[in-house]
C-alpha cells in the first residue's frame, strides 16, 4: 500500500468519542502518529492528502473477539486473509481467542500469531492467552510468560471452566499480573445438547433448547467470584435481558466487570431461525425480541461498553448440514460497523456513542492506548461514508468465510479508507 509517511485527511467530520470531538476537522498524521487535528502545524506538507468530504473520520475500530483460524484451521481462514477483511472493515485492532490449534497457552504460539500478523501488516492482532492449560479447565497456564509474549487478556475461549475452584484460582492468579479475564458466561450442564434459544421458535422447530439460565447461572457464579477475589473480568457476548439486569446491579456495587455484545445479537432474534437457517446458528443463541431490546438499551446506556464482531469464518461445508450439526458462528468483520451504525438510523443511540462502543469502549476494556485520536497516539484511523447505501453480497466479502445471515441486507455506511499506525492499509477500490 501507500508508503506516505505524512498524511492529511481533509474536509471530513472527525468523530473521536474519547475526546468528545464531533465536528468538521482535519486530521494530520506523521511518523505513524497523530500530529494534530484542525489546522496543520506550520509548514506541514503531507505526502498524501485524503479528501474525506461528506465522510466520517474516526479512530480505527477495536474488535474484542475475532477468530482468525490460524494456526490450525487454515481451511477456514488465515491471519492474512482475515487481516485484509479487517482492514476493509475499518478494524485496526483485533483480539483473537486462544482456542486455536495449538492453543495459545505457551508464549511460542502467541509469538507465532503476532509474527504472522506483522507479516500481513494489515491489522494489529492481539492473541488472548489461555486461562488454563490446553483450555481444559484443570491447570493454570503460565500467565506471566504469556503476558510477556504480548497477551493482554486471558480467556478460556468458549470452553467452560467446569470447576468453580479452578476458576477462582485462575482469576486470582491473573489478578496478580493485572490481567483482565474474558469469560464466556455459559453453564455447560444447563446448556446440555442445546443449539437454539429455549423459547417458542425452538419449541416449534424441535431444536434442543439453551435456557436463559445457562447464561445467568454462569454470570451469577462469576460475579460472586470477583466479589471474593477482586479480579477484573469481562463478559464476552451477553445475550439475555436477565444477564443485563445482573450486570447493572454489579455496576451499582462497583464490581470490576465489563461486558460486550456481538453485533448480530442487536439485530437478529430467534425468529430468524425459521426454515432452519444455519447461518443463524450462533453461540450464545439468538434470543427473544425482549432480550434484543434489553441489549440495545444497555449498549445505549453504556452498561455494555463494547460491540464486537465475534467473527467466526467457516468453509461452506461447515454450514451445509442439518441445523444442529452445523458449526456455529458468523463471518462478521465486515458487518461490525454497518450493523452498529444501523442502530443510529434506528434511533437507538447517537453516532458518537455508537462509535465509542467500537473504539474507546473496547480499548478501555483492553487497557490499551488505541481507539482514540489524541495527539501523539498511534494513528489508527477509519474513514467511512455514512450515506452510501450498499447491499451485502457474500461472494464479495473479503473474509475467507462467506457465512453470513445478512446476505442481501442494505447498509448505509461504507468504509472508504483505513490507516494502521499512519499507513494506508485499505482504500476502497472504486473511488
Amino acid at each position, binding site marked *: 500500500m501507500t508508503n506516505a509517511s505524512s498524511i492529511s485527511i481533509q474536509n471530513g467530520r472527525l468523530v473521536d468519542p474519547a475526546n468528545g470531538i464531533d465536528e468538521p476537522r482535519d486530521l494530520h498524521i506523521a511518523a505513524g502518529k497523530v500530529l494534530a487535528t484542525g489546522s496543520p502545524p506550520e509548514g506541514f506538507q503531507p505526502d498524501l492528502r485524503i479528501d474525506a468530504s461528506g465522510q466520517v473520520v474516526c479512530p480505527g475500530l477495536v474488535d474484542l473477539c475475532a477468530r482468525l483460524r490460524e494456526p490450525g484451521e487454515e481451511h477456514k481462514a488465515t491471519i492474512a486473509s482475515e487481516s485484509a477483511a479487517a482492514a476493509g472493515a475499518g478494524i485496526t485492532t483485533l483480539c483473537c481467542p486462544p482456542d486455536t490449534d495449538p492453543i495459545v497457552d505457551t508464549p511460542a504460539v502467541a509469538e507465532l500469531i503476532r509474527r504472522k500478523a506483522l507479516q500481513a501488516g494489515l491489522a494489529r492482532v492481539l492473541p488472548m492467552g489461555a486461562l488454563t492449560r490446553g483450555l481444559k479447565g484443570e491447570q493454570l497456564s503460565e500467565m506471566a510468560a504469556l503476558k510477556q509474549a504480548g497477551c493482554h487478556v486471558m480467556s478460556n475461549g468458549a470452553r467452560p471452566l467446569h470447576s468453580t475452584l479452578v476458576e477462582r484460582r485462575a482469576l486470582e492468579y491473573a489478578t496478580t499480573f493485572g490481567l483482565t479475564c474474558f469469560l464466556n458466561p455459559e453453564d455447560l450442564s444447563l446448556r446440555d445438547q442445546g443449539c437454539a434459544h*429455549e*423459547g*417458542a421458535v425452538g*419449541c*416449534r*422447530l*424441535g*431444536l*434442543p*433448547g439453551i*435456557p436463559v439460565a445457562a447464561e445467568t447461572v454462569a454470570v451469577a457464579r462469576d460475579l460472586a467470584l470477583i466479589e471474593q477475589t477482586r479480579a477484573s473480568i469481562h463478559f464476552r457476548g451477553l445475550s439475555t435481558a436477565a444477564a443485563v439486569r445482573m450486570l447493572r446491579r454489579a455496576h451499582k456495587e462497583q464490581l470490576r466487570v465489563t461486558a460486550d455484545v456481538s453485533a448480530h445479537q442487536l439485530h437478529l432474534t430467534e425468529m430468524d431461525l*425459521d*426454515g*432452519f437457517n444455519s447461518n443463524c446458528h450462533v453461540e450464545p443463541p439468538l434470543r427473544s425480541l425482549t432480550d434484543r431490546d434489553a441489549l440495545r438499551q444497555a449498549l445505549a446506556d453504556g452498561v455494555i461498553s463494547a460491540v464486537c464482531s465475534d467473527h467466526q469464518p467457516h468453509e461452506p*461445508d461447515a454450514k*451445509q*448440514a*442439518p*441445523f*444442529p*450439526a452445523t458449526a456455529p458462528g458468523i463471518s462478521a468483520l465486515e458487518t461490525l460497523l454497518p450493523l452498529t451504525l444501523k442502530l443510529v438510523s434506528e434511533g437507538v443511540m447517537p453516532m458518537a456513542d455508537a462509535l465509542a462502543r467500537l473504539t474507546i469502549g473496547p480499548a478501555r476494556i483492553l487497557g490499551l492506548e488505541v481507539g482514540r485520536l489524541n495527539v501523539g497516539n498511534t494513528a489508527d484511523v477509519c474513514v467511512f461514508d455514512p450515506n452510501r447505501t450498499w447491499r451485502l453480497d457474500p461472494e464479495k466479502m473479503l473474509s475467507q468465510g462467506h457465512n453470513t445471515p445478512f446476505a442481501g441486507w442494505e447498509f448505509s455506511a461504507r468504509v472508504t479508507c483505513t490507516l494502521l499506525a499512519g499507513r494506508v492499509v485499505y482504500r476502497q477500490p472504486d473511488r
Partner: protein
Amino acid sequence: MARRDIQLDEEGRLRHFLTIEGLDQPLLTEILDKAEGFIGVSQQAIKKVPLCRGKIITNLFFETSTRTRTTFELAAKRLSADVLSLNISTSATTKGETLLDTLRNLEAMHCDMFVVRHADSGAAHFIAQHSAPHVSVINAGDGRHAHPTQAMLDMLTIRRIKGEFVKLRVAIVGDILNSRVARSQIHALNTLGTSEVRVIAPYTLLPAESRSLGVHVYHDLQEGIRDVDVVIMLRLQRERMRGAMLPSEHEYFQLYGLTEQRLRAAKPDVIVMHPGPINRGVEMDSQVADGPRSVILQQVSHGIAVRMAVMSMCIGTQNARIARREASVSGLNP
C-alpha cells in the same frame, strides 16, 4: 411464515412433505381423502396401483426404524414404484462422506423421491433445500421436529371413527418435549379445527413454551383426560430416566400410565391411540392396549394408506412439472 413454503410448488401442490406446519386445511383434507381411497387397495386381490410405476423411491434411514420403514416400503411397492432402502448409520457419514455427498450420489442414480429419517431436527428441510428439482422429499421423522405422516395416519384413524374434528377434545399424554410425533399431531389437530387439544405431562417432559403450540397444559392425567374423545399416548424412551427427567418407570406409570380405571374419566366412546412400539406397563397396561377402545392396530394399517397418499401426491406434482416442461419444449405452451 412469510417465506414461501418449500413444500409446495407454484400452484400450491404438494412437492415435499416435511412438516404439517404451513399446510392448510384443504390440503390436509385432500391427503386424508386420498388415503381413504387407498385403504381399499389393501383389500384387493392384487394389492397394487400403477401411480408410481417407473419411479425410484429411496428410503434414507439415518436412524434405525422397523415399523415406519416397512410401511413406507410397502406403500411405495403398492404404488408400483421401485424401492431402495438404505440404512445409513450416522457413524458412516461421520467417517468422511457428508450428507450432501450421499445425496449427490443418490441423485446421480436418478431417484425420484427420498424418504428421510434423521436424528437431527431440520434434516428433512436441509435435504429438500439441497436436492435437485426433480426429487421430492418425505420426512419420516427428524429429531424432535416433525413426523408428519405419523400425524396424518392418526388423523385418518380419528376421522374414520369420529367423523368431524370440530367437536373433538383430544389429549396427548407423555414425553411432549422430545416428541416429533406430538408436534406434528398438534399442528394437524389444530389445522383441522379440533375444538381442544390438551397435553398431559410433568414439567420435565414439556417444552418451555408448550402453550405457544396451541394446547392446554395439564399435569394430572385424571383431570386432563376428563371428557376427552381421543387419548393419544406417546412412547416413553428409557433414556429419560438417565437424563434425570423422571425418577422411574414405576412412578411414571403410577402417575401417567393409562388404565381402564383411569379411562373412565374420559367420554364413554373414547378411543386410545399409540404410535408404537408400546411399553406395556409403562405408558399403558395391556388391558387398555388390547381392549375395545384401543385402535392401535388400525393406526398401523392406515399408515400404509396415508403414505401412499402423500407419495402419490408428490409424484403427481412432479409429473405435472415434467408435462409442463415437455409442453413448453414442444412449443404447445409458450
